[in-house]
């Protein structure tokens, strides 16, 4: 077998039919990574020894024939802010350069129980704060469609790995768009589940009321399979939902009777004309399959960016207070006393965006300013949640572009934090509202991928993935691969 099958479904079939063993699949995956990743830098670490040991055990047990291990032998890449007992978990930060987790995140445990092989950890913006993966302390990840451009962020390593065929699937995390936006930039599928759908146990926290782990894959069917495995309540995450996990197995209905709302605010002046054109065509395609398209308005969309960043940075300033540089920092600088140690190690161990984020968050929470900033943001958050609840009484799903633009060039926004924040303008509202949202490839603008973002009400992943899958099968954009 020369080329690796491109999807979980096709790799699973090849394993079941004995065309390839789990060990061979891991070896070929590692070869791909070794060949291409020196240019792309999607991976921070790979685990050849543990991955091969896992694969060998699966081959010996004949696990690929066991329906209880639906992912048997499938190599999966993991964003490096998700704890794995293998290797290090650095969150792409110097302050955790030497941290080795004593436990696996619940999502990892569930993947392993299903037979998946953990192939390595992928690059991200430091502590998941960013929209390009340029803020990683360990170098930027390139976009495989044009290596002068960013992969997007913060899950850029995971989306590049999947888009470039280095890993058939990956996990990412999404706080304000960190799965969806890079999925859009890299031309892959990226899903942010409903808040509480997937356990956050073992995910290094950024914004605790916003974070979710989610799948990054070539096809919607693969994303549905991964969600099926990682979703569900977890006694180690008190915010995980007791709502029962749906059956995400996809059938192929047409879209008759499905009402899809298109918000005018998603096509306002911030959205590039070339992206708008591609997405409008995708929406016409949805109508062609029987969906009724309704023009809607979500007036609080422009406020969502401010609401998101004030809440996320406030929560982050608390979440990052635990990092003291006492145990796991890569560099050790001599210090006089404990306070001096904290100042230096946190000052040097965190990058500029993380430090700026902690400042902004602390400021928004501080006495005299908390009412005007954090409390007001939290109240407007309630209004945004209500706005989405009301609109879902009129429509089943919402459609629009995932990002206002295609992948930008490396360096073009890294000195302009506000511009970087605004590239998330179309993904942050769903995070604020806690509702599920998926980015699906819908074409190209000037040879760069464009993502269609579909959004459903809370716990509406079944219909969300059904419609996304039906759309995907019109063009199968995922067949096109970067050179």
């Amino acid at each position, binding site marked *: 077998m020369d080329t690796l099958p491109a999807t979980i479904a096709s790799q699973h079939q090849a394993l079941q039919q004995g065309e390839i063993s789990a060990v061979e699949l891991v070896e070929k995956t590692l070869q791909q990574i070794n060949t291409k990743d020196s240019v792309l830098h999607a991976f921070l670490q790979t685990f050849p020894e543990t991955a091969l040991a896992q694969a060998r055990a699966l081959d010996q047990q004949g696990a690929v024939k066991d329906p209880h291990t639906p992912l048997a032998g499938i190599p999966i890449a993991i964003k490096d802010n998700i704890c794995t007992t293998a290797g290090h978990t650095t969150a792409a930060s110097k302050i955790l350069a030497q941290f*080795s987790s004593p436990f696996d995140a619940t999502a990892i445990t569930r993947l392993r129980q299903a037979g998946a092989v953990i192939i390595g950890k992928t690059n991200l913006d430091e502590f998941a704060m960013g929209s390009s993966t340029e803020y990683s302390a360990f170098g930027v990840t390139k976009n495989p469609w044009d290596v002068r451009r960013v992969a997007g962020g913060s899950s850029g390593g995971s989306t590049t790995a999947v888009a470039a065929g280095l890993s058939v699937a990956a996990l990412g995390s999404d706080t304000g768009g960190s799965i969806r936006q890079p999925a859009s930039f890299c031309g892959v599928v990226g899903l942010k589940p409903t808040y509480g759908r997937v356990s956050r146990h073992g995910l290094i926290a950024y914004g605790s009321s916003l974070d979710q782990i989610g799948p990054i894959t070539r096809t919607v069917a693969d994303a549905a399979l991964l969600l099926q495995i990682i979703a569900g309540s977890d*006694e180690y995450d008190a915010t995980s939902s007791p709502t029962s996990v749906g059956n995400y197995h996809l059938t192929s209905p047409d879209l008759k009777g499905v009402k899809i709302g298109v918000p005018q605010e998603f096509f306002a002046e911030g959205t590039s004309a070339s992206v708008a054109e591609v997405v409008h065509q995708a929406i016409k395609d949805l109508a062609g399959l029987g969906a009724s398209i309704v023009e809607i308005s979500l007036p609080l969309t422009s406020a969502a960016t401010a609401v998101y960043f004030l809440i996320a940075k406030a929560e982050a300033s608390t979440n990052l207070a635990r990092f003291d540089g006492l145990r796991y920092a890569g560099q050790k600088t001599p210090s006089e006393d404990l306070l001096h140690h904290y100042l230096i190690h946190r000052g040097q161990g965190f990058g500029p965006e993380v430090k700026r984020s902690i400042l902004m968050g602390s400021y928004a929470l501080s006495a005299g300013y908390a009412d005007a900033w954090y409390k007001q943001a939290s109240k407007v958050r309630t209004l945004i949640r209500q706005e989405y609840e009301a609109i879902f009484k009129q429509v089943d799903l919402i459609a629009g572009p995932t990002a206002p633009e295609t992948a930008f060039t490396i360096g073009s926004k890294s000195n302009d934090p506000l511009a970087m924040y605004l590239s998330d303008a179309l993904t942050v509202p769903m995070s604020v509202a*806690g509702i599920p949202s998926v980015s699906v490839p819908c074409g190209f603008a000037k040879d760069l991928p464009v993502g269609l973002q579909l959004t459903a009400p809370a716990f509406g992943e079944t219909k969300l993935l059904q419609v996304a899958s039906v759309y995907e099968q019109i063009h199968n954009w995922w067949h096109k691969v970067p050179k």
Partner: protein
Amino acid sequence: MPIISPKIIEQIASLSRLKFTKQEISQAASKLAQILSHFTLIQKIETTNVPTSEDVTGLTNIWRTDIAQPQKLCSTDTLLQKSPATHQRHFKVKAVF
């Protein structure tokens, strides 16, 4: 335009235990001012009688029985092994006093 003076940045940096150089302080002040002046739009939104959203799940008082589950506990050996500096089966850190 909200004024985030370098003095406020210094205070918050100190409370957050972050060392900044003088140049970093003035850069942070100007970038934060730019960002926050864009965010002032939320202060124009009417929110009288609107509740805050601290609770986003609707869940309350999630309990579990307080018993140790040995199969999920990490051994002392594992924890120490993963730490760069130890002394007599303790983590070694700087003196607090």
